[in-house]
């Protein structure tokens, strides 16, 4: 089989672009509650013994979850990309999905 029969795998290209997009979004997801958390840590915004404190804690643990969720999302795409050949035979075009 000569090299001319191998072409770039469009799915690989799409997943690579998807990975790039996900990586661009990574910080936006991971830091989505950072400003809320910062404000709740500021004594001048909302304080109180129970409701406000509970809300602050709810924000904090969700804020702490977000970086992991963002990374998982990227990992999911990276896994799909790594299991996808970069090139395929021309005659396989149209069958580029997971085998």
């Amino acid at each position: 089989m000569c090299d001319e029969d191998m072409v770039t795998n469009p799915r690989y290209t799409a997943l690579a672009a998807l990975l790039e997009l996900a990586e661009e979004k990574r910080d936006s997801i991971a830091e989505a509650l950072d400003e809320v958390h910062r404000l709740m840590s500021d004594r001048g915004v909302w304080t109180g013994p129970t409701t406000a404190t509970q809300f602050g804690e709810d924000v904090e643990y969700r804020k702490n979850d977000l970086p992991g969720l963002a990374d998982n999302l990227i990992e999911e795409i990276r896994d799909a990309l790594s299991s996808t050949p970069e090139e395929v035979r021309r005659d396989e075009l149209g069958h580029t999905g997971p085998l």
Partner: protein
Amino acid sequence: MSGDYSSISVDGLNDLIAAMMSGNRKLSSGLATLRSRMQDESVSTQVFTGIDTIAEWIDLQIPGLERRRNMVIALLGDEPTSTQIRIDEPIPFDSPEEAEQHGRDMAAPFLESGVFDEEYFDSLMADFEPYMNDPDVMAGFYLALGPELAERLPDMLYQSGTDDGARYVEQFSVGLAAAMNADNVLGHSSDYRDEFKGFREHFMEPTEHPSMAWGRLALLQFGDFDGWWVAHVARNNVLETFEGEEGEFTDFRHSIIPEMLGLPTDTAALAFNVLGNNPQAARFALDSWSDLSLEEYADRVYGMQQSLGTGDDIAEGFGQALVAGSGASEDPPDKGMFASEFAFTTILALGRFDDTPWPMREPMSQIATAYAEELLVGSFTLDARARESSMDAPDNFDLPPGLDPAFYLSPEATYRFLHGFAHEDRYFEGFDAAVEELYESVTSDALAADLQATENDERDPGYFERAMNMFGTLAGLQYQAAHDVRGNMDAQEEQRRAFLQRTLSELLTLSPTPPIPGKKVLVDYGWKLTKITVGRLTKSWANESGGRVDELEMEMYQGRLLYDYMIADTLLQNGYPHTEPIPPNLVNDSGDGLRDPAEIADDPDLWTEFYEWVDSNQEGWDERPHRPPFDEKFEDAMAHLDSGDGNRADGIAGETDWDSSVR
């Protein structure tokens, strides 16, 4: 969660809501493309479950945050939006929408025909009262009701015959303000400001029906409404007509009953009352947008006061509106640019009238109390004696340090204004208390500045004497004003004698009070002593001593002695040096000042000794050639006080021509 509360700032919560919305967007719509492309590429989107859960949680929290923000806005009053406001938790209703719906449910019966009797209102208001500061509930109530029904509420209340109508109309008013002040600028829930547009416009529609105007104005009596809007409602419903050619012949009464729900039925009185509760509205309505000058307004109001049955109500309301516009109803008084310009105009306008109707006297006294410093400076006659009143300082006007008046009255304008409320001593009480505070600070600062100047080998600027001129002239002007308006001199002298006796009695019982460190006990009475010296009741022991004196004369001498004693004490307390040691009979235990006045007041021999000691301090200081000897400083201060009180005040009062305008 008993005992739970939230402490919240509006600014902080607005930032928090904005941050929550932004976070929600980042986790939902901000990821829509990524999610859809992952689905297109058959990549598992299982991980979105966690992200979606957080985004949904954020979305669910926002209404609760908006509820709290709205509740705090209504409680804010005039405080800045950065102020921390406390509310109890848990809050009623979890979202603005739920709270609004409750308000709509409360209003629903009014939309159907029914009997709105006493029982109905009592039951409604039991539910209404807990929410009258809740903007969401109140917005629901008033938006459902609409402006046409809302303006009829006070009348319906009155018709119901309820005994609690006065309280209920106040609650309706507070509730309407709570609803109209909530400004939901961040969307998500409704924007009440937009929704109330029609409501605002309806109330601003001119009406010639006193009953409609009365209902509108009754609803605006108590709440804290936007000044611009209130001014328009008051003007369009009443004051435009009041200012017109037919104004003085128009009957503004809604009903022949003098009072309904504790409010005057005269809509002109009610319009002024509304302005009396809203300083900014008072300035807009009576000054910025008015076709009449304040002097013309007063002229018309005073005319009605004498000719109409409800004229007293009109004058009373007008007075309160002027107090509000002048910033004198605030605590502490608002003496900012707008308020003080209005106060300046008011003082000149009201000073035009020789005869001030009684309902105006208390308001004038309130304005005088707020602007005591300006009236004190208005009494300064050593510079620019022939000045006209102005917002700017006259040329070469050398005031004692520490005085920074908002405007500069002429001595005549000062006298004219004092004349307006000099009818009874009680009107002077607040004003005198304010002058008393000024007395303590101004005399002390003035002496310090004089001492500093001579310390620096500069000539003595004589600020202490200048201060004495002001206080003496002011006391004299008050005396002259009271003299002129009270007419019955015997009664007046009787009152002044009672004041002298009261002050002496207060002072002479000071000694049992343990001295407070740093507290200048005698100086605390400085202004009162100044006033009793101008009553022409006191006599100087220094000049007239000798012979037997009866009890009455003894009081007269005591009054003057205590004043002189206080001046000497003030000089000593402020470190004014003297060359001759204080005689053993007069020196206090610590050896650095005079004995308590109560200890010498009953012994004329000690008085004589006191005056002789003061007189003995004739020597100056070689190293401070510009510093006057103690006795000279003392005598100069007295001379300025006496001439201010005497010739100058007499001259100002005597030269006042009530037929001419105020300069």
